């Protein structure tokens, strides 16, 4: 059909990739938005400002739609792991059952309290009681991201297991959670999810302001989300740097492939952009001297392992370089928008809410941030090929041998298209028919403290 002959491994990879790529959009929203809702509600209660409380309410309303798609696609990937990668799951069941199990507990916890939160807005006398119902949602969603990333970290750098002749013999149930990839991966995933959601919500406010709807509600929303985004951006930059140092020590082939670093050398330069010719010559790339050594080990004189010292059949595909550079350009643009915002907020506050170019820039950050997440994940996952369990099991050994994976790929692609389009339609209609300023008027909460 798509390939010359039926190859279950390739189709399994494509289907898993497709499901994850779709799920990650909603999962990221699922992790980050509860935190932003909590922030808005907390400020609203503390400042007795109804506008912030309404913000929390409106965000929560949209959030339910994305949660629904996130839950069903999450269930899909959970089941697909066993259906498409049965041999891998056999090994995973022996070694990483604990984080998998804990992830569902976190999900359970979140699901229970999300239901409670959504239906108890006016139920408790003390407003803080309702706010506390949200904390398990924030903790649960971040915890499930934490545990599932722990699983992924194990696949990148297995720990807590003894491997004899490529077979896992001895397992320490909790040791498997403490993989060297875990700290950087988990913190990177969490912070970038918060960051992306802050940008998405900022983009919504910026859109309304750009349309000339100058209600103070949107100004408050923009300020809250953009300041949060700036904080998260700074933290993710620090963690990104630590991730590079992790790669240099534990997965040098990924770092070398992403930077097209062939010879093991000291004072290694970093290549940005460029194209790779047939015989591995880099053309048109910008070389930044010493930068790779600094990125990898924090010292300009440090030695960085090159691809020539890695067996050819264990080298990840070299096109991940393009992916990484694209990702870094997205990051650069987000940083630019954030800096302009901060500068204007500090020197000429009125322009923050009216400068069309800044507002357009903020709108752009939302898709950019989501694309960065996608690129980052594709880069991380393709970068560990050919391994499904780094150093233990190759991807081809983990896949199913079943027929019909190709048909399933098409069916699921259709499903995700339909789900994605309906979700967008429903969300758009939900907020177009009930704009914030109308709801403020309807609820009689005009005034709510001026900016």
């Amino acid at each position, binding site marked *: 059909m798509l390939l010359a002959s039926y190859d279950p491994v390739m189709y399994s990879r494509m289907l898993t990739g497709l499901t994850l790529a779709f799920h990650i959009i909603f999962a990221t929203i699922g992790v980050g938005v509860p935190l932003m809702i909590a922030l808005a509600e907390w400020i609203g209660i503390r400042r007795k400002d109804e506008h912030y409380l309404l913000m929390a309410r409106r965000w929560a309303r949209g959030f339910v739609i994305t949660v629904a798609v996130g839950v069903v696609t999450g269930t899909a990937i959970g089941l*697909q792991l066993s259906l498409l990668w049965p041999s891998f799951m056999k090994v995973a069941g022996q070694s990483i059952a604990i984080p998998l199990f804990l992830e569902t507990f976190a999900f359970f916890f979140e699901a229970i309290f999300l239901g*409670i939160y959504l239906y108890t807005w006016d139920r408790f006398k003390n407003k803080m009681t309702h706010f506390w119902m949200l904390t398990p949602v924030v903790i649960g969603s971040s915890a499930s991201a934490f545990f599932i990333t722990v699983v992924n970290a194990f696949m990148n750098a297995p720990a807590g297991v003894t491997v004899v002749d490529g077979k896992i013999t001895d397992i320490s149930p909790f040791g498997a959670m403490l993989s060297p990839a875990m700290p950087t991966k988990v913190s990177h995933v969490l912070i970038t999810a918060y960051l992306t959601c802050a940008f998405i919500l900022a983009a919504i406010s910026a859109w309304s302001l750009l349309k000339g709807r100058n209600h103070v509600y949107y100004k408050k929303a923009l300020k809250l989300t953009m300041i949060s985004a700036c904080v998260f951006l700074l933290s993710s930059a620090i963690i990104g740097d630590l991730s590079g140092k992790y790669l240099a020590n534990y997965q040098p082939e990924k770092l070398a492939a992403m930077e097209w670093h062939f010879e093991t050398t000291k004072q290694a330069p970093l290549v940005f952009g460029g194209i790779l010719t047939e015989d591995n010559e880099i053309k048109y790339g910008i070389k930044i001297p010493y930068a790779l050594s600094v990125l990898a080990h924090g010292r300009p004189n440090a030695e960085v392992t090159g691809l020539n010292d890695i067996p050819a059949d264990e080298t990840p595909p070299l096109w991940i370089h393009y992916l990484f550079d694209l990702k870094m350009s997205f990051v650069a643009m987000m940083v630019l928008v954030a800096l302009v915002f901060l500068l204007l907020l500090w020197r000429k506050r009125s322009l923050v809410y009216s400068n069309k170019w800044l507002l357009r820039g903020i709108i752009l950050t939302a898709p950019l941030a989501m694309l960065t997440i996608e690129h980052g994940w594709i880069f991380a996952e393709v970068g560990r090929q050919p391994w499904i369990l780094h150093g233990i099991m190759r991807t081809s050994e983990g896949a199913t041998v079943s027929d019909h994976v190709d048909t399933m790929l098409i069916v699921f692609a259709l499903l995700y298209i339909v789900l994605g389009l309906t979700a967008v339609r429903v969300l758009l209609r939900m907020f177009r028919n009930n704009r914030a300023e109308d709801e403020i008027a309807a609820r009689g909460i005009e005034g709510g403290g001026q900016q």
Partner: protein
Amino acid sequence: MSYEVIGITVLWIFLFGYLIVASIDFGAGFFSYYSTITGKRHLINKVIERYLSPVWEVTNVFLVFFFVGFVGFFPDTAYYYGTALLLPGSVAIILLAIRGSYYAFSNYGSKKDSRFYLFLYGASGLLIPASLSTVLTISEGGYIAVDDNNQITFLFTKLFTSAYSWTVVLLAIVSVLYISAMFLCYYANRANDRGAFELVRKYAIAWSGPTILSSLLVFFAIRGHNAGHFQRMEDYAWMFVLSFVCFVVAIYLVWARKRLGLSFIFVLLQFGFAFFGYGAGHLPYILYPYLTIYDNFTSEPMAIALISVFVLGLLLLIPSLYLLMRLFLFDANYVQGKRNK
């Protein structure tokens, strides 16, 4: 009790939990759609919506919990079931995806009560139990072939032409409607909603006969399909007798319009006895005749770790579930719609 038995018991309890909450959920979705096309939506929709809205997300977790736990305790099952179930499993995923998302779209979106969304949501709810029940059918053996290289082939046509598999599908669909209607009787009564109560009471009584008939059919079909399992189930005959007694009591109470909470507890007991009797008879096989709970169990440290994590998790879950029930099931003001969201 050995770790293996603890493991499978824990998982079986979760599957039972899923069976109950999912049945209420799936059936309610179907009734909600059915009442729309028969013009009786105004009668029962409020009651259904008030119950479902806060809990729909929780239902899915029971299922995820079950299969994640299964792979954890019995890693080899991932290999056998994973390979065999690609098609039925994917069908179930697609149905679950359609149902879950269209529930949210139709309930939280601004274009409420879109008939098309309701149809997707109601119809998928009936097909999910059918597609999920194939797992139980396959576990009886005879539907997959394993060759010398441990290659697994799923025997499609065999499943589709087998009398046993169709009786299981029938039982799954019918009992979903029965469990759901029985629960809604209790809930509508709590809500003091006479109109809704009388309607769901009719549904409950109408589906009680088919439920018991299809249970008997499954019994006979198992005897034909897997005689060993049937014999072991005979050892637990008292459980099935008790199950039937509970059924009679539950239906009597609904018929007499008395003590509907107690009636639903008897429904739980009815299915509990039957489900655990069936499960106990199934042991020691997980997948007849290839897998038993003993030769594919996880390592001892992992089993201990899983069980401890499980107990700790329960300490967190039980109070939370209790809170959820207190707020939305046992709070008379909420159930009667006297509290706004």
